């Protein structure tokens, strides 16, 4: 560590609590803020899910009025997407990207602070709607008009909260792009970057392109509600379906925003514990780019039953099926990375393996839903609920947890308890399947999504699913324990290279990583990089 960095580090100790956390310009502190915030939100959104599963435990209404149930489903989705998955990936990006590319910090440190602090305020706006006359928005996370326009005072708050979240993630992504393109240490070519950086570089483009589109969609909604326009009213020449097109033009890339960084994380973890370089590095990069491009031309697969013209149905079916090809390439490459490796199964690897399996299952149901006629039977049923929870919980969330287990020792300088971490893993991976697999059956049997009450024929699988849900929810408390123990109480110090075969610049720094990573750009030694050899 250079002397300037030490001096700076020294200075940080004199910061007050307020200065350190509210006025921070440090990528690590801001990363911690992001991760802590999304951790908190995980439990907020999770408690909504627990209530939902409790009401669905058996047929009949036991706990709440149907309207409140609708508030819960919508808010669960919004909180999990904008409050958990997206911010935690930004948090990981904040922590890791500067360390992985040999940068002193993020390119625009003050902006970084702004991007984070918008979020808690946005969620205050959003969550406060529960206490308003008319309750929280109750039209699902997709907020389709005209239904959403029937809401009470919550609408304006919801729309402005979404604007704020949009601003936050756009600014965050601008920062990430600028950091990756501008702050790489000399000699760290783009095609030597860790896959995590690549995945975030491409994700950032998606964010910057589609969050404004969501802003546009909800702005039209705002005008329809408060300023007497007729965007979504056919009597005035508008069209409710137009909202859906604009929304899903955002919405589909959005789901890839939530999974591409996960691809990056998994591509870091699998080679480390296979002790073998990532198979087909370049193909992995191209696959991500390809998926990102295709994600702009598949949006109407969410709308197969709205009455699209036949040609559109067929086009969106083909483009959606096409997206499965690069996705498949990624899965094959991970498996091949493991092939002929020398595998060990530390906690991060367990999560990565579970990711591959669960994400692939979600991909399978995705391909089934891409087939228009089949989707007519799946659309808006529990089958798609199962699909997106496999990709978002088994996929995105598992990768985030895996990333935390992978890098937490680097962040905190201490090891966590292996026993509890493994317990957390096994309990999660079993319960998540108990929770979501039966939802495929329910959907195929015809149970629609977003209903608080159902026919007795659906009772059994719902009960199984609810039991899995409570189990999964309770299991996450172990995670809280593991993290708190590791950060504050663990006595076991972590080495600089926490994992024997972990390569990349972040592992050349001591654990815990110093407050400022690389005040002077490191000299790049290809053999110390995970992808130093770019002959392929």
């Amino acid at each position: 560590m250079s002397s300037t960095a030490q001096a700076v580090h020294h200075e940080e100790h004199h910061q007050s609590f307020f200065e350190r956390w509210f006025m921070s310009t440090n990528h690590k502190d801001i990363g911690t803020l992001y991760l802590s915030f999304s951790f908190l939100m995980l439990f907020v959104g999770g408690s909504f899910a627990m209530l939902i599963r409790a009401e669905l435990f058996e047929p009949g209404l036991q706990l709440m009025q149907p309207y409140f149930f609708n508030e819960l489903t919508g808010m669960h989705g919004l909180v999990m997407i904008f409050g958990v998955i997206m911010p935690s990936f930004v948090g990981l990006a904040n922590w890791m990207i500067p360390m992985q590319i040999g940068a002193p910090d993020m390119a625009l440190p003050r902006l970084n602070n702004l991007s984070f602090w918008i979020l808690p305020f946005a969620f205050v706006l959003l969550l406060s709607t529960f206490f308003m006359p008319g309750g929280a928005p109750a039209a699902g996370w997709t907020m389709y008009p005209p239904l959403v326009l029937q809401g009470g005072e919550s609408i304006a708050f919801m729309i402005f909260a979404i604007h704020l979240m949009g601003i936050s993630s756009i600014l965050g992504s601008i920062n990430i792009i600028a950091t990756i393109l501008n702050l790489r240490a000399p000699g760290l070519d783009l095609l030597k970057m860790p896959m995590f950086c690549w995945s975030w570089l491409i994700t950032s483009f998606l964010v910057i392109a589609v969050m404004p589109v969501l802003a546009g969609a909800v702005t039209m909604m705002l005008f329809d509600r408060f300023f007497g326009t007729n965007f979504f009213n056919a009597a005035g020449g508008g069209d409710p379906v137009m909202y859906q097109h604009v929304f899903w033009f955002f919405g589909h890339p959005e789901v890839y925003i939530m999974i591409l960084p996960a691809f990056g994380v998994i591509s870091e973890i699998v080679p480390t514990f296979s002790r073998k370089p990532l198979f087909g590095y370049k193909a992995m990069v191209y696959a991500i780019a390809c998926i990102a491009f295709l994600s702009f031309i598949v949006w109407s697969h969410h709308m197969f039953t709205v009455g699209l013209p036949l040609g559109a149905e067929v086009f969106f079916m083909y483009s959606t099926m096409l997206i499965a090809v690069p996705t498949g390439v990624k899965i094959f490459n991970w498996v091949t990375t493991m092939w002929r490796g020398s595998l060990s199964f530390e906690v991060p690897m367990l999560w990565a393996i579970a990711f591959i399996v669960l994400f692939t299952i979600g991909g399978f149901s995705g391909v089934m839903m891409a087939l228009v006629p089949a989707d007519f039977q799946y659309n808006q049923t529990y089958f798609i609920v199962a699909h997106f929870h496999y990709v978002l919980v088994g996929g995105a969330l598992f990768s985030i947890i895996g990333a935390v287990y992978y890098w937490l020792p680097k962040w905190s300088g201490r090891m966590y308890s292996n026993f509890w971490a493994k317990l957390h893993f096994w309990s999660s991976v079993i319960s998540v399947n108990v929770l979501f697999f039966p939802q495929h059956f329910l959907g195929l049997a015809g149970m629609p999504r977003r209903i608080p009450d159902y026919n007795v024929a659906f009772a059994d699988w719902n009960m199984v699913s609810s039991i899995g849900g409570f189990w999964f929810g309770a299991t996450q408390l172990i995670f809280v324990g593991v993290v708190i123990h590791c950060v504050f109480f663990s006595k076991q110090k972590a080495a600089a290279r926490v994992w024997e075969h972990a390569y990349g610049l972040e592992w050349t720094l001591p654990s815990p990583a110093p407050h400022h990573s690389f005040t002077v750009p490191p000299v790049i030694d290809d053999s110390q990089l995970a992808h130093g050899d770019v002959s392929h």
Partner: protein
Amino acid sequence: MSQPDANVYYVPHKSRWPIIATIGMFMFMLGAANWLNGHDTAGQVILAAGALTIIGMMVGWFGNVIRESMKGTFNSQVDTSFRMGMTWFIFSEVFFFAAFFGALFYIRTFTVPWLGGMGDKGALTNGFIWQGFSATWPTNGPDAVGGSFISTSPWGIPLINTLLLLSSSVTVTIAHHALRAGKRKPLIGFLGLTILLGATFLGLQAHEYWESYVHLNMTLHSGIYGATFYILTGFHGLHVTLGTIMLIVMWLRCARGHFNREHHFAFEAVAWYWHFVDVIWLCLFLFVYIL
């Protein structure tokens, strides 16, 4: 102006502005939401407080950055980060407008023809729900929402506005060349002219709105035409307003000699923004007014 250290990427230490900015934005939106929900006084007060906070924050934050810049804190790498920041910000703005253009295209290519009975779907939609409606543009829909109206001709004020904005793009470029050549007088002159052109544009646009509302009965309530027209031109106008304010700030900074031949990123950023606003207008002129 001292020379920045090319090897040290400037990482500012703690700043109070971001958190002030978020509080300002929060109050602004909280106030706006309350106002919209009919809590007028509370809403307006909070909104105004938010707006003032945001303005104060901008003055403070930008002032801070300008002082740093004058001290020579930013090396060329930092400069590149700023450039990337501005580029991608404009990129995101493009997509914001794309959402509304997309809405317009969708409505015009699909919805209105269907409501008017075109194609299989249109035959049903029109035959069973909206008999008698024939697809035209502009339209306020089968229910003639907002009553009959007249749309403005593109060849009056909009054409003049097009010429104004186009020439303002030229003048700002001339000003930029002057800045690079170190010629102060033409810089101040042409930048001032750009501001004048922008302000004139806004004046004419306001006049056009007034005409539409008062004489042509063409309002936000005028069905889908009024909706798309005002949301597109309105957000554009908002951007021109912002752009003009930014140009004024640049003019003041030029007058104070903040920029030199090499270092004038802020000026360039504003010029890019101005060109962007100009291009959006061309699309508007074509798709909203002419076609």
